[in-house]
């Protein structure tokens, strides 16, 4: 007696190949549903991080200042850096009021140009001075605010602080539309050498939610008693609200799209199964059990769901990556947790789509089906 590989799997394979247009339509639908779910899930999970990253454009959200008239202890910067972590940006500032040649008072600020450039992206600077290129003996390279420029005569000018006169050279001009426009910025080292004062303010740009910023604030206050630490409330509050609203918006979109695609897939698959009610009836007439036919349909649906989930996961991860690169200029890596979620979702939709018609078919007499329409 010769036995052949005749099994439910075999029947399913033959059925899928024979009805390839329908199978492809169903596979397409399931792939799209999985891809959409993967894209949106991946995006949604990394959205918080991506959005908070964007809010870095607003600059420092924590300001740390020494008590009036004093300067920060020299180890403060290192302490803050250790507490705030490598993700945070920190820019030191020192301020002094100096006199121009005319005797007019002007605010001079010492800072770390590289750090300021990284944090204060809105500073419109003609050409960032290179602090490292300074040669001893030559005038100090200064970045002059557009407003302050009107009170100086020429690009080379002296400033006097506490009887010490410093020769400066305008390397660049700065425009911010705010108080910086009335100031002159020089490298912090030159500032300290000239005035004998070190930094009095640290501006910190800490990424993360309002709660994370609040937490950092507490840790800084605990570590640095005697130093005033406060959040820039204007930024922190607005940021939280906008991030929340964007997340809600994304969530609504996610639900809406997933629902639509899910229902379309459900309808497509249901129709595809219902269409085969005659096959169902023939098999019943040939003596198959309810379970055997049900298994046949479910197996086919599950296979399609599996293939759709795999293809959709790849496609969706790619899509999320593309959106991240294009919109956020950031890498959004594939979210492996999305794979099982998407697979389960697809299986659920596909099995529901196969199961619903089974319920309808169960109540229909095979005879009615065989008599044809």
């Amino acid at each position, binding site marked *: 007696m010769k036995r052949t590989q005749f099994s439910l799997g075999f029947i399913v394979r033959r059925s899928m190949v024979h009805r390839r247009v329908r199978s492809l339509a169903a596979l397409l639908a399931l792939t799209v549903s999985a891809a959409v779910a993967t894209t949106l899930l991946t995006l949604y999970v990394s959205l918080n991080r991506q959005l908070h990253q964007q809010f870095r454009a607003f600059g420092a959200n924590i300001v740390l200042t020494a008590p009036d008239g004093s300067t920060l202890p020299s180890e403060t910067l290192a302490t803050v850096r250790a507490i705030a972590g490598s993700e945070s940006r920190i820019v030191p500032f020192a301020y002094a009021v100096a006199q121009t040649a005319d005797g007019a008072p002007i*605010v001079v600020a010492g800072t770390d140009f590289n750090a300021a450039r990284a944090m204060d992206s809105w500073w419109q600077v003609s050409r960032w001075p290179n602090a490292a290129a300074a040669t001893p003996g030559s005038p100090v390279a200064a970045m002059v605010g557009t407003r302050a420029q009107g009170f100086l005569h020429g690009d080379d000018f002296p400033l006097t602080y506490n009887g010490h006169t410093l020769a400066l050279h305008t390397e660049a001009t700065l425009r911010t539309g705010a108080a910086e426009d009335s100031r002159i910025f020089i490298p912090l080292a030159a500032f300290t050498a000239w005035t004998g004062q070190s930094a009095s303010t640290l501006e910190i740009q800490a990424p993360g939610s309002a709660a994370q910023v609040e937490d950092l604030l507490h840790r800084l206050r605990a570590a640095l008693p005697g130093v005033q630490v406060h959040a820039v409330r204007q930024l922190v509050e607005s940021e939280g609200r906008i991030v929340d609203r964007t997340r809600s918006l994304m969530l609504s979109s996610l639900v809406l799209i997933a629902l639509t*695609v899910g229902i379309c897939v459900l309808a*497509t698959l249901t129709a595809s199964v219902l269409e085969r009610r005659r096959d169902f009836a023939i098999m019943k007439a040939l003596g198959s059990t309810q379970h055997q036919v049900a298994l046949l349909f479910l197996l086919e649906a599950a296979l399609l769901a599996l293939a759709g989930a795999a293809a959709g996961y790849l496609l969706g991860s790619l899509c999320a990556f593309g959106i991240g690169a294009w919109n956020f200029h950031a890498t959004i890596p594939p979210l492996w947790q999305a794979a099982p979620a998407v697979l389960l979702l697809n299986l659920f939709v596909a099995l529901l789509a196969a199961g619903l018609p089974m319920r309808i078919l169960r109540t229909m007499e095979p005879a009615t089906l065989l008599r044809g329409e």
Partner: protein
Amino acid sequence: MFFRLLLESLFRQRRRKLLAATAILLGTATVTAMLAIGTSVGDKLNHELSSYGANILVTPKADTLDVVVGGVSIRPATAGSYLRESDLTKLKGIFWRNNILNLSPELPLHATLTQAQPSQPATVPALGLWFHHTLHYGTESYAMGAPAMHRWWRLQGAWPADAALDQAAIGSKLAAQMHIAPGDSVALNGEPVRITGIVSSGDATDRTLLLPLALAQKITGQPDAVRRVEVQALTKPEDALARRNPDSLSPALHDRWYCSPYANSIAYQIQEALPNAQAEPIRRITQGEGTILQRISGLMWLVALAALLAASFAVAASMTTAILERKQEIGLMRAMGASQFSVASLFFAETALLSLLSGALGYLLGSLLAARVGWEIFHSTIAFNPVLLPAALGMALLVSIAGGAPSVLRTLGMQPAAVLREDG
């Protein structure tokens, strides 16, 4: 006869049509909703971003240099020049007046504060402000002032009345330092003033006395004077054109620049309206807002695009299945002598009619959904966008015909007998 057939076909076999109709309806609804959200999210976000406060600062042109560190004026502002409070109405006359959401004039001064109980008088920084000022322009009036500009300010008590010359609010740190509570009476430069509220801001305002502008003008003896004006305007993110110097642009480009709500062009127009004023965009805010606006709108657009693609594929798949179900019908018509052309016309006309009907319903549903989402999230509804109707209908038509065409054409290409024999 064709139309009769078409109508007969459309309303018969409703279960089979239901799949296609549902798919198209949901697809267009999603696409409409996502596009409506995508197109309006910039606008909604722009209003959200107004919580960052002023994005343009107006100061007198000929001015002494500010000597301000940490928000505190190191040297008391001396003579210097002023803007005129009465000129501010003109700002509501500029081209982009509707984009100007709020104005907050400021007049800083130093005043001597004495508590009711005999104590040492102290010289404190003070700021004259509008609280709930009504600005009249023509027949319209606008409510403007500092509290709306600085939404992160927290008030305990009440704001002073703008016209009152005997009321003031006080910064929280200053209040704590001088043990002042809301309702207390103090003397300001010898005149009695009642403290109506305590303001906490998290910045230098915490150490400042906040006065109605009229009182500040009276104390300084400078009627109608303001030192600077904070302006909050809805702006368009900076692009290549916005960065150009307006004076170097060709007349046509200059008009385009002038008529775009860039922070720069609004500042430019403010400068035109106010004599001796210099208006500067506050770049920290405008640049930050621009980044956020672009990223989030971009995100929503991409998600809308994804929705469009996904819905298209889902609808196309449904249409393919729906048409395949009716293969027999096509075979039968062909067997009865209908030409390929007439069968195809009938099917496509039916598909078109179905997709237009479902698409229109989908547009309505999608618009309602978008309005609902807008209300839930931004507390302002997203208006029906008629431009989206042709887009939604076009998408429904295109996708359903594209989804159905392969099945119809393939079946038409087969011998009618083969179609009939394939049964199912």
